[in-house]
């Protein structure tokens, strides 16, 4: 936790900045503590303890502004740091667009830090022995199924069936390695500015991730992973992580050749955020101002499908990613980003607002949510339901490399997953490619489920797109 002395150090930075001639300043004090226990093949491989505390200072001097940081918080060091920061800022060119956020827009009564119920006080009572016990729990379950590396297993085992994979008969697999990591931590952030804003955000996190590598009887290797994360220890449902990772690896065995063409694509919720990210990036007013956005000039226009409604919901108590204020102290609130295909707002920081003339909003997204719908009958909650409903296509569970051109929205991503036919998984595939344009893709969205992973901040469910250019 941030101590009173550290808060005093942050406040002293503002006073020092003023004393050295700054007209305004903002100080962010960030402290994070994390412990992790990594296992390899059910034995401890690495333990680590991390504790960081840094000050980030933004100063405004003579119409200029600079950003600085240090983790040397002793008073003598801080004084030198602030003095040099103010002097350095004077070397920059004036920029009247840079200023503190308007106090009328900053959050009020947010100095406790736990207003959003993201702070689990039981974290303070975790001892090394308890962490170790928790780190081993998924491994114990895993070893009940796979007692040791090197033993051959039939592909038609329960794990493969659960994965939905239809593997080639005759192939066997053996475990190469199983790696997992327990980690828990606390992030405590304190933000103040010389206009009187004071805010604090405290969040704990508990997470587990597993990665399993296997080899089939033809010598081909496959890896699968799974992870869980929660802000409260009691909410972390993680003991099946290693088995889920194994299932994902086994499901890939025996990939089949498949045909390219324009296909229906079911995109699993575990990777769906990747195709949302270019939209989020292009909604940044600074990207728009720099002509580096395929949504430039689209505010108020209908760009995407009538069915596509996309909302930022930053104030969900107990949900990771929620926040009451952004990095400038601006109060967050629920905002509709895309409403029935119409671009409703950009992310507009105070600087972007001054540069563009747009009204300020917030500097970025918090918890984006896609409203569920289905163009083909009643709502389908998840990927398996979408496969049954849409009958034929590709089910993408992995995005491997690729890119989206921010300026044009043209994209190309490597994909892997399964081919499905007549509502059933047929075979895994790998080394596939999807290409197209983001605007075109999101005009072809046909369904959004309700299965967004609780482990992620972005609440993106499984999605269905039609007429996706797919090649192998």
């Amino acid at each position: 936790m941030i101590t009173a002395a550290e808060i005093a150090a942050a406040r002293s930075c503002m006073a020092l900045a003023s004393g050295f001639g700054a007209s305004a300043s903002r100080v962010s004090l960030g402290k994070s503590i994390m412990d992790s226990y990594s296992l390899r093949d059910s034995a401890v491989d690495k333990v680590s303890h991390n504790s960081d505390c840094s000050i980030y200072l933004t100063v405004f001097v003579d119409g200029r502004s600079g950003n600085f940081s240090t983790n040397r918080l002793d008073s003598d060091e801080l004084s030198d740091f602030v003095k040099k920061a103010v002097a350095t800022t004077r070397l920059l060119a004036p920029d009247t667009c840079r200023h503190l956020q308007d106090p009328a827009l900053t959050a009020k009564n947010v100095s406790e830090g736990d207003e959003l119920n993201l702070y689990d006080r039981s974290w303070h009572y975790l001892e090394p022995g308890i962490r170790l016990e928790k780190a081993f729990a998924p491994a114990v379950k895993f070893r009940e199924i796979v007692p040791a590396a090197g033993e051959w297993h039939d592909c038609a085992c329960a794990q493969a069936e659960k994965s939905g994979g239809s593997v080639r008969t005759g192939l066997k697999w053996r475990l190469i390695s199983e790696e997992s990591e327990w980690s828990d931590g606390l992030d405590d952030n304190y933000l103040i500015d010389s206009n009187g804003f004071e805010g604090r955000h405290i969040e704990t996190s508990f997470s587990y991730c597993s990665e399993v590598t296997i080899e089939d009887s033809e010598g081909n290797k496959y890896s699968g992973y799974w992870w869980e994360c929660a802000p409260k220890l009691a909410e972390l449902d993680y003991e099946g992580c290693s088995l889920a990772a194994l299932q994902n690896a086994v499901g890939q065995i025996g990939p089949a050749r498949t045909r390219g063409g324009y296909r229906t694509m079911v995109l699993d919720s575990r990777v769906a955020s990747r195709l949302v990210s270019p939209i989020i990036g292009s909604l940044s007013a600074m990207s728009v101002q720099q002509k580096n956005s395929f949504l430039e000039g689209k505010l108020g226009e209908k760009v995407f499908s009538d069915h596509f409604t996309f909302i930022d919901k930053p104030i969900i108590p107990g949900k990771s990613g929620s926040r009451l204020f952004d990095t400038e102290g601006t109060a967050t609130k629920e905002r509709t980003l895309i409403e029935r295909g119409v671009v409703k707002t950009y992310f507009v920081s105070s600087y972007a607002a001054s540069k563009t003339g747009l009204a300020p909003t917030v500097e970025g997204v918090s918890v984006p949510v896609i409203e569920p719908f289905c163009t083909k009958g009643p709502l389908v909650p998840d990927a398996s339901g979408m496969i049954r409903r849409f009958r034929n296509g590709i089910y993408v569970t992995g995005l491997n490399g690729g890119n989206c051109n921010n300026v044009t929205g043209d994209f190309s991503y490597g994909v892997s997953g399964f081919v499905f036919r007549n509502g059933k998984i047929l075979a895994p595939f790998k080394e596939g490619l999807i290409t197209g344009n983001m605007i075109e893709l999101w005009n072809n969205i046909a369904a959004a489920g309700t299965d967004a992973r609780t482990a992620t901040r972005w609440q993106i469910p499984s999605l269905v797109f039609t007429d996706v250019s797919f090649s192998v």
Partner: protein
Amino acid sequence: MNTLNYYLDIFKVTVPQMESLVAKALERGGDFADLYFEYTTFNNLMLRDSEVTSGGFHIDYGVGVRTISGDRTGYAYAENTRMRDMMDAAAAASAIASGTSGTWTQPASRLVEAGADLYPVLKSWRKTELSEFVPFLHALERAVLEREKRAVKVIARVSSSDSDVLMFNSLGEITFDSRPMGSVVVSVIYSDGRNTISKSSSRSFRTGAEMLDDALVETLADEVVRNVDALLEAERPKGGQMPVVMGAGASGILLHEAMGHAFEADFNRKGQSIFAGRIGERVAAKGINVVDDGLLAANRGAGAFDDEGVRGEKTYMVTDGVLTSYLHDRVSARYYGLESTGNGRRECFRFNPIPRMRATYMEGGADDPRAIIESVRKGIYCAEFTNGQVKIGEGDFTFYVKSGWMIENGRLTRPVKDINIIGNGPKALADITMVGNDLKVDNGTWTCGKDQSVPVSCGIPTVLVKSLAVGGM
């Protein structure tokens, strides 16, 4: 040249204190312990909308303590060098060992000298005012705008860092290093009223502020405006399986991602790499040499020492087509009973070192680059990659080609853009059938992101891969 006292003063520590810390890290047993003290200052300055209005500096200071027991690692760090806090970190790191008392005895401490000076610095970044970079940024923008009227936005950045590093270990070895780094990136948006494209160029060197000269302005401006006509007209080609010619230089990122990671010894030690257990086997055609080089003076991946205090070296992973070495840190070297190859690197004191690449490249071959292109009836020439991804176990990779050309009947014809190439690293390596005599190490701002970010560089001569999947329309 700095002396040991320079570093001891920075970190306010003595040799006996370092010995005590290592003793603490090994008090519960373990085979090895080390300390990594780091003081880094960063500077950055950005020109946007023709004004240099954004900039700052950042300071990072601390010490990492590591205990190794077998091939297991305990790690902790302190953000100051107060003895009490460093002792707490050492105690936390010692938890990896399960014993109640160690049997380790401290050998006499000794200084390990560095080899050749790899960081030619005439003008220290720390002693250069940020304001001195401003004329360079304006000159760079001016040079771009003078060359290309279709440039509608220019962003130019200068960033620099200076790291002072002091290392000490349970072998009694004391090493130190002062590592400079300067980087320049220019990004430009072009529009002809019909099409809009973005393009960027960069340079990064372990050298001083003298790198910001007129020649660098000219080089970057020339590079960032090159082929704009082609890029504005470029189209996404029809995809399929076809021969792919990798242009010399930046195509080396494919070597780094698709093959280089599979040479890292941690993946091999765990059996996860496609190259595990294959030392001595042929993995490429005769004549092909693949190297990871820490000794290229001023190179972004150069290091007098790695981050475990092991001297930098030039390591051949593939010699005449045969797999001859993995890239080792101390942990994997101990596992294999070999000497470390000096590849134990880390992002900063907050991370334990792991095997990482430095400057990875394929040595030049015998073929004329023009002859390589002329040998292809229908294929793709890759000029510029932006990013890629690889699955280490499977060796499968996907790379995004930002720009290139169609090859038709041995000639570069239509410009292409925004395509992916997909393949399998070891298979692609084995499928290289021609290697040009034009090796070029690319000095862009390459950063490898394997768990931690470290600066690297990459290079390759023009090569022909006989068949890869190209994703187009």
